[in-house]
C-alpha cells in the first residue's frame, strides 16, 4: 500500500504540473532567474579567484645579489626563505639567465642590443623573485634580509619602489573578493525570498483544494506530496533551462571575454568544474522548489 500511495502522489504531482501550466511556468521562470544567479555567482567567484591569483602572482619582490656572490650561499638563503609562512614561491634567476631573458625580450630593439655589446660583460645580477600571499610577508622577508648575515651578499632589494603598487593590488583584489561575496550573498538571499513568495502565492491559490482534500479524508502526506512533486519538477525544469543558458553563455561569449581579459577563461572554468556546476544548479533547483512549498503548505493543512 505505501507503494500504491507513493505512485498516486507522484502521478498527481505530474498531472498538476502539466495541468497548471501557468503556475508551473511562473515558478520555473522565477527559479531560472535564481539558479542562474547562483550559477553566475559560483562561476564569477571562481573566475575572479583565478584572475586575482593571476594578478597577485605578478606582485613579487626581487632580491639582487652582488657580482661574484656564491650560488651556494644564495641557495642557502633560498632554503631559509622557504621556511617563511605564506611564501607562495621563490624563483632563482642566475646572471646568465637574466641576460638571456633580457636579450629574448628586447631582441628587436637595436639600440639596446648595441649598448649591451658595447658593455662587453654581463651587467645583470643574480636574483631571487619572491611571491607571498600578503603584503606583510614581504615586509618580514625584507627585514630578515636586511638584518641577517646575508646582507653582505645582497646588492639591493626591489621592494620599497614596488611597495605601493603591491599594496594597491592586494587591497583592490581583497576588496573585490569580499565585496563580491557580500553582493552575491545579498542577491541570492533576495532572489530566494522572491522564489519563496512566488511559491507561497501559488499554494495560496490552491488553499481551498488543500482544505477539501483534508475534509474528504486525505492524510497530510497525500495532500502535501503532489505539491512537492510538482515543485521538484519545476526545480528540475529550471535546472535544465539554466544549464542550457549557462552552457550557451560560456561557449559563445566565453572566448570573446577571454580576448579582452586573457586571465578570464570561462569555458575552461566551466569544463574543469562541470560536475560541481551541474550539482549546484540541480540541488539549488530542487531545494528552492521543495523547501518553500513544504513551508507554505503547512498552515493550510491545519484543517
Amino acid at each position: 500500500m505505501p507503494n500504491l500511495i507513493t505512485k498516486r502522489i507522484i502521478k498527481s504531482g505530474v498531472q498538476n504540473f502539466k495541468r497548471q501550466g501557468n503556475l508551473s511556468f511562473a515558478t520555473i521562470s522565477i527559479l531560472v532567474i535564481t539558479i542562474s544567479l547562483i550559477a553566475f555567482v559560483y562561476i564569477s567567484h571562481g573566475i575572479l579567484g583565478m584572475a586575482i591569483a593571476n594578478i597577485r602572482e605578478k606582485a613579487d619582490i626581487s632580491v639582487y645579489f652582488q657580482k661574484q656572490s656564491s650560488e651556494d650561499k644564495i641557495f642557502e638563503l633560498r632554503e631559509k626563505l622557504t621556511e617563511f609562512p605564506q611564501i607562495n614561491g621563490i624563483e632563482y634567476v642566475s646572471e646568465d639567465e637574466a641576460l638571456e631573458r633580457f636579450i629574448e625580450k628586447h631582441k628587436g630593439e637595436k639600440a639596446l642590443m648595441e649598448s649591451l655589446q658595447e658593455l662587453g660583460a654581463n651587467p645583470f645580477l643574480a636574483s631571487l623573485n619572491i611571491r607571498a600571499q600578503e603584503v606583510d610577508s614581504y615586509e618580514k622577508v625584507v627585514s630578515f634580509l636586511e638584518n641577517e648575515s646575508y646582507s653582505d651578499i645582497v646588492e639591493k632589494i626591489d621592494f620599497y619602489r614596488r611597495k605601493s603598487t603591491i599594496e594597491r593590488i592586494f587591497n583592490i583584489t581583497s576588496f573585490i573578493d569580499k565585496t563580491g561575496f557580500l553582493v552575491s550573498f545579498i542577491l541570492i538571499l533576495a532572489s530566494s525570498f522572491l522564489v519563496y513568495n512566488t511559491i507561497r502565492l501559488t499554494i495560496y491559490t490552491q488553499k481551498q483544494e488543500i482544505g477539501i482534500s483534508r475534509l474528504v479524508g486525505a492524510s497530510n502526506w497525500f495532500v502535501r506530496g503532489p505539491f512537492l512533486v510538482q515543485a521538484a519538477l519545476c526545480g528540475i525544469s529550471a535546472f535544465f533551462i539554466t544549464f542550457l543558458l549557462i552552457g550557451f553563455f560560456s561557449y559563445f561569449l566565453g572566448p570573446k571575454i577571454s580576448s579582452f581579459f586573457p586571465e578570464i577563461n570561462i569555458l575552461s572554468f566551466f569544463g574543469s568544474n562541470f560536475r560541481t556546476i551541474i550539482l549546484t544548479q540541480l540541488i539549488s533547483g530542487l531545494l528552492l522548489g521543495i523547501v518553500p512549498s513544504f513551508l507554505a503548505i503547512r498552515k493550510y493543512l491545519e484543517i
Partner: protein
Amino acid sequence: MVQFQNITKIYEPDTVALENISFKIKEGEFLIIAGRSGAGKTTLLKLILAEEDPTKGKIIFEGKEINKIKKGELPFLRRKIGAVFQDYKLLESKTIYENVAFVLEVIGATDEEISTNVLKVLEIVGLQNKADNFPKEISAGERQRAAIARALIHRPKIILADEPTGNLDPANTSEIINLLEKINKLGTTVILTTHDKEIIKKLKKRTITLEEGRLIRDDEEGTFIL
C-alpha cells in the same frame, strides 16, 4: 451513532454559534436539521467533521469523542463520513471521475476497484457521460450530483449534506433529495441541513430546528415552524 452532549460553540470574541445542544442520531436514521441562515446548522456539521472544535461539551461518534481525536488520526474519522456541501467543494483541477476516485485513492483502494466503483456510482447519479469533464464545465445540479457521488463512493457510515440544494432549481433539488433518500434506504445514516420547508414536508423525517444556536424543536416527522 452520533451523540451531541451539551455542545456550545463560541467564535471569538463572543459570537455564540451553538448553545447547549444535546441530541442523539441512531444508525440508519435520516435527520433533517432545519433553521434560518446563521442558526448554527453548518457549524453543527463542521463539529462532526472535526473541522471545528466545540467550546464546551462532547460529540461522540461510534463511541469515540471526536474532539479528542489526534490530528494524525482525523483522516481515519473523515473516511467514515461522506460530506456534501452547498458550494460543492469539488477539486477544480481534477475531472469528475478523478474527484470521485480521489476518495478511494486516499483510502488505498486498488486501481481495479476504483475504476469499477467510480463508473458504477457515476451511473447512479447520472453522470457517466460527464466523467472526463472538469467541474467548471458542468451545471450546478451536475456538480452537486458529482459531490454526492464522491460522498458515497467509499460507502461511509454517515453522509452529511449541508444545504445541498441551496443553489439548485426545483427539478435539480428534487433529484438530489431523491438520491439522498435512496442512499438512506440502503442503510446509510444521512444528516441533511436545510431551510427549505418544501423539502421538510416532502421527506417527512425527523427534524431538529435550530434558532440562533439553540435547539428549539425535535419532531419525529418534519415540521419547520419559525
